[in-house]
Structures are given as structure tokens and as C-alpha cells.
């Protein structure tokens, strides 16, 4: 699945964002407004701060 961050994602601390999932690079790409590709199950508390994207524009 391809995701982009909502504005609320940037307010999450590192115990709740992608850093907590062991994906610091995906966290930084999201903060910079880039799309990421993540195929594992997302925690629901994290998922509500992301938008699913249908069009892949260079997702990392």
C-alpha cells in the first residue's frame, strides 16, 4: 500500500510514528511530503494519520 502523511502525522512522537516501527527512513520521507510503500499491517492509531494513495508517484 502507498501512503502519504496527513498534517497530524508530523505531531506524533517517535513512539507512535514510523520510527517506532523500525522505519526511520519512511518516517523522514513522510515528513518531507513524499509517498512511502508499506505492505505490513499498520497499527490503527498510526493509520488514521496517513492517507492511502492510489497513484504511485515514486513511493519509497
Amino acid at each position, binding site marked *: 500500500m502507498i501512503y502519504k502523511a496527513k498534517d497530524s502525522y508530523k505531531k506524533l512522537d517517535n513512539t507512535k510514528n514510523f520510527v*517506532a*516501527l*523500525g522505519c*526511520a527512513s519512511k518516517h*523522514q*520521507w513522510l515528513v518531507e511530503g513524499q509517498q512511502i510503500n*508499506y*505492505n*505490513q499491517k499498520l497499527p490503527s492509531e498510526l493509520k488514521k494519520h496517513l492517507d492511502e494513495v492510489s497513484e504511485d508517484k515514486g513511493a519509497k
Partner: protein
Amino acid sequence: MAKSAVFQTKSNTSVFIGTEATMGTAAVAGAALVELPVTDFSFSELAAGGQSLSIAPFRNSGGMTQSDDMVRAQRHDRIYEVSVTFMCTDAATKRVLLNLYEDGASGGISSLIGSMPTTKHYVDGGTNVKQVSLIFREMAHAGEGTDMVFSSCMCTSMQFSGDISSNGGVVMCTAVFQTGYLPTNTTLNYSSLTEVSAQQTVFNMHDLATTTINSGSAEDLVLYSFEMNIERPITRVGFDTAANAFKPHGYSLGGYEVTGSLTVKRDPESLAAIAEATYFALDLDTTVYQILAPKCIIDNASISFDDDGLKNIIPFRATYTGATTATIFSFAGTASDS
């Protein structure tokens, strides 16, 4: 006391990396542990193992010798070091990289990017989950049933090395960890283990399908061996009282340096690969394991005059280009990593 019959042997151990919840507190019995498929290891001794001596200058009169007031155990700055060499598997390698630069989730490509590190403040008692415990089963002085544990370790270097003519072609990783906390002995029953038996696919040079340097066009290299090094020093900050084993108040992080070297057959492809003042992208890929370094620059290519044919030695340094979110190095351990 009578002599002890207890002993420890390197053949009777398992080495695990354990996730910690709090800096300064070792991984608990229920913590997630990943076993490293080690082939060799070493670690500092506990007790006086991390103790160096601080010595006063000789005085000019009253005897030019050393009293016990002039020679003292220096414990406020001690650092304990652990070195492990292990076979490159997906789970073990990513667990080390997760500690080294916070990116190493299962199912994901582990990437070191220009803007890292993400976490910079490591404080005793803090709830960072980046520092790790290194656990050597059955390796305490009491032997069988007691483990040697190094808590709150930080990886300071990770080296990948592969040679098609040695170690069965298996790519070996050597990781060095440091901690400012006193090692301990434990007898915990750890319950959440990812053991070596579950890590069945190993990175092997004989499986390489792609070995290219691309500086405008892909140069296909006959690769004999490679090394890839990621280094990041740490420094301990402050010291607590003797009652608290002079534990650090925290760690300070140094910067990342990513270097490497390739040994390839000297031919027109390798000549095109060593163009001067040109950056290249490195791609080593077995279709399961892949190492990428998109922006490398050569540091003094040379020739090895071997009996089995001349080879080019290509040392390089990996960098990022453009935005700080650009990749310096990435590692994939399965065909489906994304």
C-alpha cells in the same frame, strides 16, 4: 575458596540482541530477542575489565615511586566493547542496522539516508528503544545456566564482507557495539526469540546476479570480493556515583561514514568503472539480498598483481545527493522487501 570446576566454551553459547524499553535497563525476560548466527565473538570482561589506571606524575622528593594515593582505578569513563561476526541473514542483519541507524524492520528495505540519525538524545532512564542488550547465553563466570549481558549497547560499526573464494562465499557481517554500563550476569528465561533456525537464507557471493557500477552506463564487473563499512562513533556523557557503577548520564552520537571496497577482474568494464572524478551507483543483487549505494566516489583505485590475473581494487566512499532524504546505503534481505 576451593578451585571451581565451572567453565565456558565458545561452542556452548547463543548470542542474542535484545530490545530494551529503558536506557540503562537490560532486556527483560519477555523482550524480543533476535539470535545472531555468529561465527566468532569477543567481549570486555566485567568487574575490573573496564577499569584502566590513572597515574599521578612522579614528585621530586620524598621518593620517586608510586603510592596507592598516586595510582587509582579510573572508572568514570569506562566503555565496554562487544564484537560479533555473523553470517548475513535478513533478520540478524536488519536487527543490527535497526540499532545502527534506526531502520531495519522486517519486510522493509533498510535505508541510511542523509538526514539521519532521527533520535539524537540518549539519556539514562529514557524510554528510547534504540539501544540494545547483547546477551551471550551460558557465558557468565558461573557457566551453564547463567548469561553474560551487556545492556544499553550502541552499534558503532557494521562491516559487510564477501569473498567468493572463502567462507563458502557467505557474506559475513562484523558488528562492534559499545556501552558505558557495567555488564552483568543473569539467569533469565527469555521467551520471545527469533532463533537462527528461523533464518534459513544466507547472503552468498555465489548467488550474485548483478554486480554493477553505474556512472552513466552500467559496468558489469567480475566481482571477487567486496567490503561495505558503516561507522558511527558514540561517546559516553557524565558519570554517576560508585554506588551506581559510574554509569553514564547518556550518550553523544558521532556522524556516519560509509566506505567500501571492491576487488574485480581488471578489464574494459572495470576501466570504465574507475573514471576519474565521477560518482557511481553500486548495485550488488542476488534477487533476494541486495546492497545499493547510489552515490559513491572512488578513493584511489589500484591494481593487485595476482597470479590468477590482474585485479582492480576500488575503494570508495558512499554519499547522498540532493535532498537530505536521499539514500546513502540500503540493504534488502528478501525479494519482497519494500
